[in-house]
């Protein structure tokens, strides 16, 4: 009996060992497999719909743009090369004189350059199955990209970016209903609406806050975001009494309506609580009136306005009506200007809005992309673009195998059409590659395999010698970092992203590389005293929050943070930084001029902190140069500002001001309070703040304390937008080639996602003086609101060939630096680090560059080379010579 049991056990163990022995190594000589991983699960790789960076992962290997970036000859910069394009773009705008064409694409004025471009296609480009890629592929693919039934996520890349294809937006939006400024649809001859959809609907709205082209016709230098409110309140003092009164009455009507009848939920709920009667209506801000009010409502509902100029009281109020509104609008529009139109009969309609049912049928033939011949396409743009920006815009691609794409379409119950093309649902068979690699396996949530696409022209055209040495790419989905690290240490991955804990082990490795991101991580403080007071009143234990509204106090907190230590202790490779725009931003893409290296970029540190160094209380205090400017840390100065801030607040008579010995209780809203990184970061900040408060206590002989309570809030950005926070981490960045564009986040008054609540919506009211022309003096014209400065430089176009290029470029740089310093000097946005990710490369691979090059990184897969092929690497890993300690 016992013998039988023993036999069974032996049999079982033998089977296990036999099975275990299965699956030996398949590494081959001469094969170079790049083995990497993704920590997230890409849910699609369709270029028309991708949303997150992991979803653009596959196309980065299997597709390629019309143009691409490559190292320059000295490998210290980049150059633009043509890939799927056969040549560089040719501007043919001047050649377009066919009336029908001009009319089709809406070219009404003089157009001389930048609107129409010919792109020659690479005749050798084929799909992975060898079928040719022609001009038809590009045109038909764009038709699907912009298909109104598909609502493709990336459709706006061709109408809401620097590349604006004529009629693309109109084609994409057909069949949907939107509220549009009526201004765009008024017939200049008849004064009627020239769109059937508008006329049929017949409902007109007034929205005093929403951006209207009408404002642009009154003021120069606007960006289209200004609404009627701006016109009514910034019309100067030249208006007649009648006009003044009319403007005030329109304002009154909207304020009264919004007060009485609109929803007060949302961001401005507490502001609305303060509006208790007509006398308080003047406190209603523009953004509180972002409501589309039907003109019929002025007849149907009781709405009151003033009857006497400058006086709106219960005694002077008058019942309003649609007709009265029309009359007032007529007075204002006639008095101020009609945007170039002449008919006074309908000019009152200019600032209004109408529901536009996009029930028109826009033919795709009118969209600005056309086939010239089999290997040439022509792009008709609504907005001019220079050649370099066009090439940058076309480093992405939109082509798909349309036959397969259509075959894999699905439709939902609401008529929404999707396709399984380039999705896990369609699988590898539902996709065609055309880049250097072709997709062979896509196992959702598990692995992605790609191999060399032998049909790719680049392997035989002689233009890519020494590039794309990688033969296979094996990407595994490993969501758990510890597993990924163990795989890397076992030699089964060629790179690994390091986290904060890993940095302690591998921080000094020679195989470590840091990739910088154009994102700055900062603390956003709530500086709005009223909001802070509301929050203070809700505290369950005694404490103060209003002190955060004090500029000196916030500056002190900023100076109290040793960013170098923060970066090394609480991040994985990020760099201490005190600016908003980090080292990656380019102010001239042609020359590669980096904003941070310009005189203007460098001047920002000094504009914000002056020259830090030394103890301001010491008798021999001398301001020393701020060598460690990017660190922004000086405890002595921090103490000084904290002391100043606390003193000001203690002496204040405002409700809820801080008293000696109070505890400052701040709530830090974070996505995940349990995250190790967050805990480490918060502990660091707590320690630094405690230190500076302790120092301030010594100076003030007080007993202040500060607590930072981490509050989990997965929606913390929205909380910040509505002022329900004390402080958050906010991270902002944008295209490295467009630093001015990013400043929208800080300077545009109606930018929705502004995280600095104390400044939100005030950007058009707060003025800033900038020596824009660089003559060392501030002229009267050099004091403008943040919004105006930003609008001005955002709308500026500089042509390198132009004689005044240098002058304009410097002006733009001066303003950009002035704006950056202006925002930083408010200490609502307090930068901590320039974000970076750090990774460790295996000894198997080598990057194309030892240093990080803007826009190129380390060269990517194009320049990746190998020290071992798969076979040799496997042998090395199995040998006694290999150990993970080699990386330390």
């Amino acid at each position, binding site marked *: 009996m016992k013998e039988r049991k023993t036999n069974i056990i032996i049999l079982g163990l033998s089977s296990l060992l036999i099975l275990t022995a299965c699956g030996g190594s398949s590494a081959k000589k001469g094969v170079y497999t790049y083995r990497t991983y993704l920590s997230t699960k890409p849910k699609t790789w369709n270029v028309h719909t991708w949303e997150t960076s992991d979803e653009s992962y596959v196309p980065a290997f299997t597709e390629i743009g019309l143009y691409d970036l490559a190292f320059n000859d000295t490998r210290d910069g980049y150059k633009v090369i043509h890939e799927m394009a056969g040549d560089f773009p040719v501007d043919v705008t001047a050649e377009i004189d066919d009336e029908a064409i001009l009319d089709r694409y809406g070219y009404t004025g003089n157009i001389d350059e930048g609107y129409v471009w010919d792109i020659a296609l690479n005749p050798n480009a084929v799909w992975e199955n060898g079928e040719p890629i022609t001009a038809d592929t590009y045109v038909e693919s764009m038709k699907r990209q912009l298909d109104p039934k598909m609502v493709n996520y990336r459709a706006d890349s061709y109408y809401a970016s620097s590349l604006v294809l004529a009629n693309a937006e109109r084609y994409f939006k057909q069949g949907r209903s939107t509220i549009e400024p009526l201004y765009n649809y008024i017939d200049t001859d008849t004064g009627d609406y020239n769109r059937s959809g508008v006329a049929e609907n017949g409902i007109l709205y007034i929205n005093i806050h929403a951006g209207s082209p009408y404002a642009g016709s009154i003021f120069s230098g606007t960006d289209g975001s200004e609404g009627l409110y701006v016109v009514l309140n910034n019309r100067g003092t030249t208006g007649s009494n009648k006009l003044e009164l009319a403007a005030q009455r329109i304002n009154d009507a909207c304020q009264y309506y919004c007060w009485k009848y609109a929803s007060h939920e949302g961001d401005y709920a507490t502001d609305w609580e303060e509006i208790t009667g007509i006398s308080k209506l003047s406190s209603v801000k523009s953004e509180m009136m972002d409501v589309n009010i039907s003109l019929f409502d002025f007849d149907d509902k009781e709405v009151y306005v003033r009857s006497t100029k400058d006086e709106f009281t219960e005694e002077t109020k008058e019942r309003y009506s649609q007709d009265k509104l029309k009359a007032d609008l007529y007075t204002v529009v006639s008095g101020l200007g009609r945007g170039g139109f002449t008919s006074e009969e309908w000019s009152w309609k200019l600032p209004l809005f109408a529901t536009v049912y996009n029930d028109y049928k826009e033919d795709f033939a009118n969209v600005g992309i056309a086939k010239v011949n089999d290997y040439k396409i022509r792009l008709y743009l609504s907005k001019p673009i220079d050649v370099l920006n066009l090439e940058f815009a076309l480093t992405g691609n939109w082509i798909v195998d349309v036959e397969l794409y*259509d075959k894999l379409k699905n439709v*939902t*119950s609401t008529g929404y059409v999707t396709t399984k093309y380039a999705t896990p649902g369609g699988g590898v068979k539902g996709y065609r590659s055309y880049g250097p690699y072709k997709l062979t396996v896509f196992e959702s949530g598990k692995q992605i395999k790609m191999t060399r696409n032998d049909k790719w022209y680049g392997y035989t055209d002689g233009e890519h010698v020494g590039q794309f040495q990688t033969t296979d790419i094996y990407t595994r989905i490993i969501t758990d970092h510890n597993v990924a690290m163990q795989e890397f240490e076992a030699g089964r991955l060629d790179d690994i992203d390091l986290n904060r804990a890993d940095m302690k082990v591998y921080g000094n490795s020679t195989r470590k590389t840091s990739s910088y991101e154009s994102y700055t991580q900062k603390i956003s403080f709530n500086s709005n005293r009223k909001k802070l007071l509301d929050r203070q009143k809700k505290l369950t234990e005694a404490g103060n929050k209003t002190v955060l509204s004090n500029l000196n106090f916030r500056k002190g907190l900023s100076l109290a943070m040793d960013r170098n230590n923060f970066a090394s202790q609480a991040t994985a490779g990020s760099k201490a930084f005190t600016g908003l725009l980090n080292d990656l931003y380019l102010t001239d893409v042609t020359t590669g001029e980096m904003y941070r290296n310009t005189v203007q970029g460098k001047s920002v540190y000094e504009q914000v902190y002056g020259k830090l160094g030394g103890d301001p209380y010491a008798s021999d205090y001398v301001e020393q140069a701020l060598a460690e400017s990017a660190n922004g840390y000086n405890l002595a100065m921090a103490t000084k500002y904290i002391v100043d801030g606390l003193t000001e607040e203690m002496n204040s008579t405002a409700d809820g001001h801080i008293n000696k010995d109070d505890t400052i209780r701040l709530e830090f809203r974070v996505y995940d309070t349990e995250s190790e990184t967050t805990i480490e970061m918060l502990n660091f900040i707590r320690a630094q703040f405690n230190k500076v408060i302790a120092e301030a206590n010594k100076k003030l002989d007080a007993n202040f304390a500060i607590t930072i309570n981490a509050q989990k809030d997965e929606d913390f950005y929205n909380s910040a937008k509505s002022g329900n926070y004390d402080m958050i981490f906010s991270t902002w960045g944008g295209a490295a080639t467009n630093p001015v564009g990013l400043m929208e986040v800080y300077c545009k008054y109606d930018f929705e996602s502004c995280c600095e609540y104390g400044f939100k919506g005030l950007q058009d009211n707060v003025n800033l003086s900038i020596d824009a022309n660089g003559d060392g003096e501030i002229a009267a014209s050099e004091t403008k609101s943040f919004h105006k400065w930003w609008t001005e430089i955002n709308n500026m176009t500089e042509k390198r060939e132009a004689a005044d290029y240098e002058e304009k470029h410097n002006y733009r740089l001066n303003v950009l630096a002035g704006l950056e310093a202006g925002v930083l000097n408010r200490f609502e946005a307090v930068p901590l680090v320039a974000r970076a990710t750090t990774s460790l490369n295996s000894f198997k691979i080598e990057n194309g560059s030892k240093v990080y090059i803007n826009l190129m990184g380390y060269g990517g897969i194009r320049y990746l080379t190998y020290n071992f092929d798969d076979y040799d690497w496997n042998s090395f890993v199995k040998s006694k010579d290999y150990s993970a300690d080699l990386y330390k």
Partner: protein
Amino acid sequence: MRNVKETLKYILKRVLLMVVTFLVIFVISFALIRALPLNFSGGSGTDEMKFYMQQVAIGRMYEKNGKFYENPIPVQFFNFLKNLFNPYTYTDPESGITQVASRWGYSYKVEAGLTADQVLFRHLAPTVVINIYSSLFSVPCGIGLGIFMALKKNKWQDNVLSVVIMLFISVPSFVDAFLLQYLLGYHWEILPPSVASLTENGIFSPVMFQSMILPVLAMSLGSIAGYARYTRAELTEVLTSDFMLLARTKGLRRSQATVRHALRNSMVPIFPMILGEVISVLSGSVIIEQIFTVNGVGGIYLDSINSRDLDVFQFVSMFYILIGLVGSLVVDISYGIVDPRIRMGGGKDNA
């Protein structure tokens, strides 16, 4: 005969009740899932308008006066029912192909373009196979261990095993999983640390079997401990019963008495546990799947709720609710089969 009739009546009643329960749960879950906030997260690099336009396209929101509002839940429910019984049809102008919309909706995120049922069934195989292996391993091991401990009650073997079992019950399965993966997968390199590719190897290949050993072990350790503890407790009680003494005095050997009388009696509470285990083979363990990169249902379930892929989430939820309801019915019925003394459908008049 009367018993059979009563049993059938009872089963019919339970099935009807199950249908009603399912529908009630369905309505409640439909409403609750759609009551989840649909807030745009608003982080950097995101586009609010794109998000809303997509929500309008999939019928979750509607647009009025340039603003976006969520469709009321009753409207969404009505639309769902409408499509369930009369699916939308569409002819593509480009290809001329006429399509009928899926009755159960589509995934628009986790596996975009697939129908909700396709998403579930694509991921069911690895989950089911791992669970089957785990059940086949843990049930006999656990019961065997429990019998051994009961027979060695209060001896050193029982004491040592009790401590080990308490350890496995107390330690969460993901800790076992990490340890097993580290020791057997990376440190000693005896077994593959993660599950092999299903598409490349097939579900029943040796490579797949070998790579499943670690997750199966990780999932089984807790179950083995649970079965062993229950079996030991039940069997210990039965072994000390008077009828066991009677069986022994009638001349049965200890093993005969244990197997024929004690074991069967002790199985009454354990057998439904095994049935529950069999039914639960369809469910996935999110954490185990994540550690061993199993491309199973657990991960897809979590992804669908995180990305608000409501059709998928709802279909998977309802699938498991149905499994749960059927499971509880089968377990209840099984009591009568395991122990004929337990009668079903016994109302007051039958008492």
